[in-house]
């Protein structure tokens, strides 16, 4: 599920359904218990009324039980299908009497010595019901006369009047074979009786079912309403997010200067917007750099290409002697070499920018590095009658990537040879510092002013006059030097004093502590 909105909706729906469900179950259970308690109370009250109509009389050696129950006072008791019934037992299990509702079936007998027992039972007519079982001692009365036979009368007002004569030698035939002790006990007159009074629970079940339906329907309605409401609220709540999305969607490569307004934004989204704005800013500057660089590269390549092109076209414009062709080819070769170095420098810069240059640090003898870097330049230096003066302490060395450091040195010496006044001196002075080594490459003949220093490391930047002097520089040398020194963890600084242009290189510390 990708949509935040549907996630929230589904989450809310599940949560609300769960909460409402739990709440409904609790309410239902509470209602059921309350109804049950009420039912049980009524059951007990009616049972108690029945019990109050049961009397026991001692008559000499017998007991007479007199039951006088006004069954009309208990609704449904007098009818066979009234849904209400009772059954009365002696505590020895002998059925004393039962209501018409029981039919011919015995009710389940249950009781407890201390308290009434309630139990869900199936009524004789098959309906489910609930009954209370009570163990009780009927009211005792001593009478002089005994009743010889059981008699049940039903009074005109519906009262069942049953008289039961109980002989001490009562008929307990089923237990005759048991041992003497028990037989003795049972010989004694029963002192307690058991009443199970039951009523069907249809009405309560109906009520509960009604309640269930109400809870389910209300719950369902609430869930649906909650989902609708949540959907509206979520939509409104997520609107700022949509706005942000629209804002972002409208930003193309050409509108990178736009920012997402954050003033009226909810605090939760603000950090996202702020981060996005930061990203936009970085993108913008990266794009700007890229664009400027591309334009610069295009510009810098156009000029030499124009040179090659016009050299070749002029050469081809008529038939010439071999010497003239040779000269044109040599000119083209020179231009190609400059273009090659431009492209290579650019590539190197791009690789350094992207951190794609592997570093292989090794011990480098700086004297040897300077000498070997100067060798390819010695012809040009000779033409300008330049003198290279190297002043390095014996065995001055450093640990760095040889290839990168020689790019640095070659570029600096190349610059010096190009820009130094003819007949001058290029000085390479080195010294040991606490942190490593330091080398200065200096040449006289600088026409730059000190306020141009911040620009010298910029790509394609050239001092105005500088270009006139050489025409063969691409304006990448110093920026490559800086980038390389950054890569090596060193430092490159430019100093201009009394028309002397010097670059100070601070080389990273030598881990071996030599030199």
């Amino acid at each position, binding site marked *: 599920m990708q949509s935040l909105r549907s996630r929230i909706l589904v989450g809310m729906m599940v949560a609300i359904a769960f909460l409402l469900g739990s709440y409904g179950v609790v309410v239902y259970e509470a209602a059921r218990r309350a109804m049950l308690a009420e039912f049980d109370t009524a059951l007990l009250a009616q049972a108690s009324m029945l019990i109050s109509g049961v009397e026991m009389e001692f008559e000499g050696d017998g007991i007479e039980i007199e039951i006088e129950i006004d069954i009309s006072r208990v609704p449904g008791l007098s009818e066979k299908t009234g849904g209400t019934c009772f059954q009365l037992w002696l505590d020895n299990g002998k059925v004393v009497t039962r209501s018409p509702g029981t039919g011919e079936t015995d009710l389940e007998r249950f009781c407890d010595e201390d308290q009434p027992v309630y139990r869900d039972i199936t009524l004789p007519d098959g309906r489910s019901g609930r009954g209370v079982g009570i163990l009780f001692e009927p009211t005792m009365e001593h009478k002089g006369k005994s009743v010889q036979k059981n008699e049940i009368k039903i009074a005109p007002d519906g009262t069942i009047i049953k008289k039961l004569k109980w002989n001490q030698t009562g008929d307990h035939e089923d237990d005759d074979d048991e041992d003497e002790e028990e037989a003795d006990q049972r010989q004694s007159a029963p002192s307690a009786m058991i009443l199970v009074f039951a009523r069907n629970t249809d009405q309560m079940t109906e009520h509960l079912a009604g309640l269930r339906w109400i809870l389910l329907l209300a719950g369902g309605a609430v869930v649906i309403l909650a989902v609708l409401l949540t959907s509206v609220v979520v939509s409104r709540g997520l609107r700022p997010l949509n706005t942000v999305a629209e804002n972002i969607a409208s930003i193309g490569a050409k509108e990178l200067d736009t920012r997402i307004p954050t003033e009226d934004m909810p605090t939760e989204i603000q950090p996202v917007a702020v981060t996005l704005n930061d990203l936009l800013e970085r993108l913008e500057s990266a794009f700007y750099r890229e664009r400027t660089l591309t334009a610069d590269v*295009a510009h810098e390549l*156009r*000029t030499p290409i124009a040179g090659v*092109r016009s050299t070749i076209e002029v050469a081809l*414009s008529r038939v010439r002697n071999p010497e003239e062709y040779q000269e044109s080819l040599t000119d083209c070769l020179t231009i190609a070499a400059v273009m090659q170095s431009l492209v290579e420098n650019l590539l190197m810069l791009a690789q350094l920018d992207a951190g794609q240059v592997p570093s292989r640090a090794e011990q480098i003898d700086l004297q040897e590095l300077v000498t070997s870097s100067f060798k390819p330049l010695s012809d040009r230096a000779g033409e300008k009658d330049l003198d290279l003066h190297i002043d390095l302490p014996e065995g001055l060395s450093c640990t760095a990537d040889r290839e990168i450091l020689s790019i640095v040195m070659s570029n600096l010496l190349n610059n010096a040879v190009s820009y130094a006044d003819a007949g001058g001196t290029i000085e390479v002075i080195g010294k040991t510092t606490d942190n490593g080594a330091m080398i200065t490459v200096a040449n006289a003949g600088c026409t730059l002013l000190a306020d141009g220093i911040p620009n010298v490391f910029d790509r394609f930047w050239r001092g105005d006059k500088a270009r006139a002097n050489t025409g063969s520089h691409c304006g990448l040398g110093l920026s490559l030097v800086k980038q390389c020194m950054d890569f090596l963890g060193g430092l490159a600084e430019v100093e201009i004093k009394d028309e002397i242009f010097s670059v100070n290189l601070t080389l990273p510390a030598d881990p071996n502590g030599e030199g």
Partner: protein
Amino acid sequence: MRILLIEDYPPLQKSLSKGLREAGFAVDVTGDGNEGLWYATGNTYDVILLDIMLPGMDGLSLLKKLREQGNQTNVLVLTAKSELEDRVNGLDLGADDYLVKPFEYEELLARIRVLVRREYSDKSPVLEIGKLKIETAAQRVWRGKTEIELTAREYTLLEYLARRTGQTVSRNDIWEHLYEFDSDASSNVVDVYVGYLRRKLDKPGKESMIRTVRGRGYVMEEGS
């Protein structure tokens, strides 16, 4: 035709000046903006080829100064910047045309020829004087159906005179259009070249197309 080339990139300087000279132009070359302005104000040129990125003074400032001085010389801007803004800037400052580097040498020549033609009332690339026909684009000259072979310098002289048919042109004017600023050729070299031209153009025994106006110079006439 005399051209001032203000371009600081040595290979372009070298190849363009060589090519233009071979095409019969007199070419003054400089790589510095200030120097370029000095050349342009001190001499008469048919066309100035102007680079934008220049040491000393950039090309656009140079152009602005030149126009402020009332100099109406045709200026063709050579630029490595292809952005519309740069081109519009150049044209707005009074450049007559521009070319973006790298350009085709042939196109440069063609555009120079257009600018040269613009100076004269006749914009046609083919000049016809009597039976003489000059195709300025191909730099070929015909008399009737016979082609006349001319050297570059002879051709330049012919075209210069032909463009001004009926006008008397002074030796000095001719010299200035034929030779570069630092040329050490003397002014009577003009007479020598006029002599070469007459020999090639005129039929023996007939009156010359190029008539000498005593004390003033030469004039080209339809003649025979």
